[in-house]
């Protein structure tokens, strides 16, 4: 009611620091004086960090080989030209020969890299059913609509695993052979294909459907493999802990990459004699060439790399720190000049006063 407003008690406001807006405060002034030390400190710190990063990144050794098979780039071009399209001849293989003049310190990681492959495009990225992959029986039979058109097979069976991501599973395989001295026999280097996926993915997120009579195959009965797959999901690996949805390659693949050029971990080399790294000598990688990328201008690379505390080889961060650091220093100097001039002026003013 409006007319009852008038009669109230004492209207005197509270006299507190908060209500009177007198809270103790720090009032920095953005001027040369205050930013000067900031710039110098930040600059020095960044340059220091940058140098550290730069050297640690430089310490990382990487070997990479583009085996896309573009004409004239090695023996993979044969495989590449042999089968265009989605079903290359299964038995085409090619090799990459290289030699290490010295030890490549371990642990050595084997990556494959795809470029110009848009795993992050929206329609592709959403085309999966996490419920199905977590082993939910109902979701296995009824894949989510997002999986379309890889939701149901032509015969009407639910596809397991459904979706475009699963359908496009990377299916090249590599074996590494080592020759200690020229003329010696090539020995196969054991590739540790376990624990290449995130621990949580492998143990929590991806689960096989409950076994039926102890058999994974029966659990998957009534489903169809994705159209591009040549074998059903339960036959991805003979190892029962690495087959079905918890196949490590599959799990790794299902973690969609952020950028169109990405690498994914294929294996680690840390067993036996190779725990210290790859010793000097000659090597070749036998590549089973299945995955067609030339059609859309993609590239496939195979990479050996060791890692440092800060991850894989990437000189950028070190350089960035150095650049930003030196910019800071530069700005600091500009500020210094300004500060000196301004300070003089200020002093004069003070004198005048």
């Amino acid at each position, binding site marked *: 009611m409006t007319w*009852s407003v008038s009669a109230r008690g*004492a209207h*005197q*406001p*509270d*006299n507190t620091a908060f209500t*009177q*807006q007198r809270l*103790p*405060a720090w*009032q*920095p002034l*953005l*001027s040369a004086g205050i*930013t000067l030390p*900031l710039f110098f400190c930040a600059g020095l710190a*960044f340059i220091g960090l940058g140098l550290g990063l730069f050297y640690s990144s430089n310490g990382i050794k990487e070997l990479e080989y583009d085996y896309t098979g573009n004409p004239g780039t090695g023996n993979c071009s044969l495989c590449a030209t042999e089968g265009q399209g*989605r079903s290359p001849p299964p038995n085409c293989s090619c090799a990459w020969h290289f030699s290490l003049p010295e030890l490549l310190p371990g642990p050595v990681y084997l990556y494959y890299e795809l470029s110009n*492959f*848009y795993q*992050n*495009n*929206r*329609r*592709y*990225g959403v085309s999966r059913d*996490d*419920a199905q*992959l*977590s082993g939910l029986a109902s979701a296995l039979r009824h894949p989510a*609509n997002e999986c*379309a*058109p890889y939701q149901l097979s032509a015969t009407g069976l639910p596809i397991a695993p459904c979706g*475009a991501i699963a359908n*496009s599973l990377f299916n090249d395989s590599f074996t590494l052979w080592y020759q200690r001295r020229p003329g010696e026999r090539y020995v196969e280097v054991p590739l540790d294909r376990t624990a290449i996926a*995130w621990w*949580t*993915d492998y143990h*929590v*997120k991806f689960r096989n459907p409950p076994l039926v009579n102890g058999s994974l195959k029966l659990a998957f009965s009534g489903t169809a493999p994705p159209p591009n797959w040549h074998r059903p999901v339960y036959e991805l690996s003979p190892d029962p802990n690495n087959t079905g949805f918890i196949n490590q390659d599959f799990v*790794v693949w299902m*973690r*969609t990459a*952020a*950028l*169109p050029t990405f690498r994914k971990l294929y294996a680690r080399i840390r067993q036996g004699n190779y725990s210290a790294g790859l010793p000097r000598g000659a090597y070749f990688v036998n590549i089973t060439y299945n*995955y*067609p990328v030339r*059609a*859309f201008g993609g590239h496939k690379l195979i990479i050996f790399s060791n890692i440092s505390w*800060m*991850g894989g080889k*990437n000189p950028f961060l070190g350089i*960035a720190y150095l650049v930003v650091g030196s910019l800071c220093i530069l700005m600091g100097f500009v*500020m210094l000049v*300004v*500060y000196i001039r*301004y300070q003089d002026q200020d002093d004069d*003013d003070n004198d005048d*006063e």
Partner: protein
Amino acid sequence: MERELEAAEEFAPPGRRRRPGGRRWEGRMRTVRSSLLPPLGTEDPAAGGPKGEKLLMRGCTQHLADNRLKTTKYTLLSFLPKNLFEQFHRLANVYFVFIALLNFVPAVNAFQPGLALAPVLFILAVTAIKDLWEDYSRHRSDHEINHLGCLVFSREEKKYVTRYWKEIRVGDFVRLHCNEIIPADVLLLSSSDPDGLCHIETANLDGETNLKRRQVVRGFSELVSEFNPLTFTSVIECEKPNNDLSRFRGCIIHSNGEKAGLHKENLLLRGCTIRNTEAVAGIVIYAGHETKALLNNSGPRYKRSQLERQMNCDVLWCVLLLVCMSLFSAVGHGLWVRRYQEKEALFDVPEADGSSLSPATAAVYSFLTMIIVLQVLIPISLYVSIEIVKVCQVYFINQDIELYDEETDSQLQCRALNITEDLGQIQYIFSDKTGTLTENKMVFRRCTVSGIEYSHDANAQRLARYQEAEEEEEEVMPKVGTVSQHGSTGSHQNIRVTHKNQSIKCHRRTGSLAEAKRVSMLSKHTAFSSPMEKDITPDPKLLEKVSECDRCLAFARHQEHPLAHLSPELSDVFDFFIALTICNTVVVTSPDQPRQKVRVRFELKSPVKTIEDFLRRFTPSRLASGCSSIGNLTANKSSHKSGSSFLPSLSPDNMILRLEEKLGQGAPAIASNGYSSQAAQAEGWTPQCTPEKCPRKEAKQQDRELRYEAESPDEAALVYAARAYSCTLVDRLHDQVSVELPHLGRLTFELLHTLGFDSIRKRMSVVIRHPLTDEINVYTKGADSVVMDLLLPCSSDDARGRHQKKIRSKTQNYLNLYAVEGLRTLCIAKRVLSKEEYACWLQSHIEAEASVESREELLFQSAVRLETNLHLLGATGIEDRLQDGVPETIAKLRQAGLQIWVLTGDKQETAINIAYACKLLDHDEEVITLNAESQEACAALLDQCLHYVQSRNSQSTPEYTESNVSVGFSFIPASTSSDSSPSPSLVIDGRSLAYALEKSLEDKFLFLAKQCRSVLCCRSTPLQKSMVVKLVRSKLKAMTLAIGDGANDVSMIQVADVGVGISGQEGMQAVMASDFAVPRFRYLERLLIVHGHWCYSRLANMVLYFFYKNTMFVGLLFWFQFYCGFSASAMIDQWYLIFFNLLFSSLPQLVTGVLDKDIPADMLLREPQLYKSGQNMEEYRPQAFWLNMVDAAFQSLVCFFIPYLAYYDSDVDVFTWGTPVTAIALFTFLLHLGIETKTWTWLNWVACGFSTFLFFSVALIYNTSCATCYPPSNPYWTMQTLLGDPLFYLTCLIAPVAALMPRLFFKALLGSLFPTQLQLGRQLAKKSSNKFHAPKETSAQRQPPGDSATELSEKKTMGPFESLPRDCASQTSQLTQQLACSPEASGEPSAVDTNMPLRENKLLEGLGTQASGPLRPEEAVSVECPGDSRRKPTSTTQPAPLSSLFHLPSIGSLNWISSLSLASGLGSVLQLSRSSLQMDKQDGEFLSSPPQPDQDLHSLQGQATGYF
């Protein structure tokens, strides 16, 4: 029952008769009948057509609202739909819901649909809960009010029973007792008061605390027995409900067909309180929401602030940007799809049916999805945040203790919640004068009676003492005793009025402000009574004359013509004081108990209301028959009998006939007989009434102080003044006024009419019968300009006429003098009416009163007819003191770059002098006065002035041009321009203003006004005020603020961008209309300069930050599109995307938006020019917006590409990469805010910490909670993994730093090299607070280096010394252009000839007497244009009759009065322009023909020497 039936049928014919004419009324009339009557339809079923019509009307009555108050908007059921509907009126909500719904379309969805709805629902829910709560509290208060009790007449029980308010219906009879609140709009039918009066207090309605009088409807007041509702059969026709509090029209149709007019005096309004009346009864006319009080209650106001408008515009830019981005993406996606669709790309997902998606369709889908993904660009939280910030700002303004006025115990109220930031951008202030700049506490200062001036020097001294004492204030408490002694000795001739309250006397003497406060608090409920106003020290000379009159009259009163024994002068003195005492509407009460009526009845019960009344009173038959005080009723009856039996159904024609008849016989009777002294005594004299009665009364008066409740403070001041001369108003009833004089005792005047004050007539009158002479007298009190025109023209032939003329011219001179002193002047005049004249007038007046349709107009005309041929008695000068701190406030506001216009209804001289007093006009600046009498003259004058101003400006070109460019990186250019050479000020009067506001001239007027430093509009009407504001607002596109305190300022307050009401003396109307209500004018300074600046700067920065934040965030997403085939996928998890704005990044900016102080308050007050940043919109201007956007784009580039490159060629997945990007964005936002925040309190730190903590904790919980729940993103354990990754920390460190480096760098560089005024102010504030303990230095730092203020102060101190030599020098070079403007040429009345010289002399004297004041050279460029010959001497302006001087632009500070009265109209203007051209050319080097009049030189020199 039968009787009623009869009555109803009797009523039918007139009803039918008035139908045809009344048809057009039907729409705006309503009919009210007693609810006790059985419904008409059942009563006479056989009624014909008209009955049916009435039935319809009756039906209408039934449908009328009951008295239930229902201010709630919703019911339980309707809440949801209605509230949602209302919320969707806000376009933004529709937009967000649309986007959320878009998510339900599978082809384009970006997020989980439910999730996408969450923020919208959240926002809607918050608003809904707020609305619900508000509605509930409204419901509760409604309930409370609805269940108040009230006595309502019950049909069944045949008596008054208590009912709830809500049960009252239209047509019910209610009975109210003293101090009860009126439940509905009630037509007053009966009152316990024998006069049929009732007093109400309308404080709840309009805040006015004085009692208002209401009258019982005519026809019911004569009832002898108590009013019985059962016998009420009349029908009331009245207006449809409307919200006009000051108007009510209608008529009551009695069962016998008689009609009586109803007016607002009969209506008791809901919400008012019954006072001083035991009990009243009435019929409910309007109930519930149809009551005027509720119709007036429009609730809070919503305005859009300028900043918000600008922001909305920028929001539109953002929408455009959003659409552009989406379009770009869509096209990109289309191309991308086309590129890959044929190539069997493994990542290409075909349609559900296996066919590949066509690029066009893909583009369309992508477009829609992009809009969803980028929706953050239009921040959903923006509006909510702004509202929150504004509410907090309002809270802080309300809480500011510096805006709290102890005296009135009121603080600043923000009535509009959403225009706080407008306070920081005001460019023009339009101020009322009275009550706004001044106290509106009127103090009687001087008066002139019959041409003799009484200067009241002692009174002036007293006032001065009062002021001094006030200044000394509380710390002199121990000295109180001595002060009081001094006071008593000093005022030995201070003759005190007999009945004066002891406490007040003593407090006045001590003069302690604290005491004054206490008393004013105690007597707060009485209007206008500060001790200063009450105690007036009379002028001894005048006092002597008054007592002489008194004695003389006391001696002569038994003789036939007592007044004839007085000399004309003394009789004027006597009349003067009588007029002061009775010509008003002051109600006399005593402070403690309710008003006791003096129960001395006279034979007349009411003012003359009908012709019968008149006949009864003034026919000699009645006089001859004599009268007794109790014979009223019998006389009434006998007159009925003796008159004629047809009187009850008297038609107007008959009455007039009769009247004339009576007059015909009456006149001789009066002549021969007159009144017997006996009769006169019986009627007029009471003190000697009964010996036992009088002492008691005397004794009673000793202990009770009379309190005067006046509608305006002037009235009270005059009554108090008269009381000081022992002419005391002791009682006022509606029909009689009693005045007490020491010797004469109590004189009781029969009050025949009161013609109230209105702003058009500018005067009020009372018609009384003089008890001494038994003549009918009209006393008129009004503005001098009006009253002087209404005087009886006096011939210059006889001595008497010449004498009169002389008196008038003298009075006029004094009036001018008063005006020069800044006093409010009122003229008092009198007219003696003969019976015939009165009868004539009365007849038309009664017609006017009875008319229903154009009652106001007719009454106005009637009043005008009466108030002519007046005899001038004298004039008064009332001082309206300036409020505390007004000059300082105005100076500060002006320093702050605000243009202050004063729009006042006062006369020009008064206004000018108040303007000088409050430093609005400066003595060393020119004043252009615009007084035009016709449209053409006004146009010509405007041209002339424009020309002059421009030529002036062209001479000071450097500053002028600079002022345009003063963007203000330093103090120097911005401030010198405004201060170096003061621009002239403009004074314009109401008539000229009316011309100037015409379409054709408004541009010129505005252009001229813009050039002027301040503008003074005098004599302006409320409408003109609002027109001026509107003009400036629309044409100059400027932010305007209007401040005022009275009802006449309401329109102006409503028109302005910001309306400020002063909750002062004149009620609450201005406050009700305002956006902000301040207790005093001086609080405006802090409100604008501190709070306005803060609010603006805070909100501007926050809005900019909002835009920055969203653009930057959206930028990240946009850059990502280049790497995901423009497919509208987002690397940032949907949760972060949706809640980022709402949760993670909102709190710090809110805290900053609420608490940030760019400059401390004391610094802002010390350097008001800092306010200009808000006026120039420095913080939030378009380039700032775009710069901000560019910076946002840059920052988003950095924040995108640093993680991009850092994670390039790695096995990172989308969301593991997106989360660092989000974190980087958050840190960048916080750091950016850190750069923008000027004041870091612990709240800021907490808010930033909380934001970071919230983000990480939400991320961790979210990433742990469910492995598969949130498709398509699979954030499980992402954050945890990232926290173990050094790369995450490294990117989070470098990206924000790199992004903000340039901003920090440039800000610091600008802050050091080209600091803005604000930054300088901040530096200064910091320095002064650092060196707080070094007072020497702080004082030095008050002026920043190179600050204009230093220069200004230097100049000021130098000023007087320099001016002297210049003075002399310029005397030689001075030039006066005296154009022939003789009265003959302009054809003015001959009276002017005699007046002019006199007035000049007086004026000069007046100037001379003011030598004590500062140097006051009248540097007025007064351009006068007496366009038509009707011009009266009264309206000539102050310096104009003198040789007003034309100012020489080149002679910097020296000023000359240049008389430039123009002969007439255009011709003279041409002359003027020629002369001014000459002056420009010669540059003041040649001497003009007529030398300066000597007096001028003398007076000027005298002043100059006096000054040193």
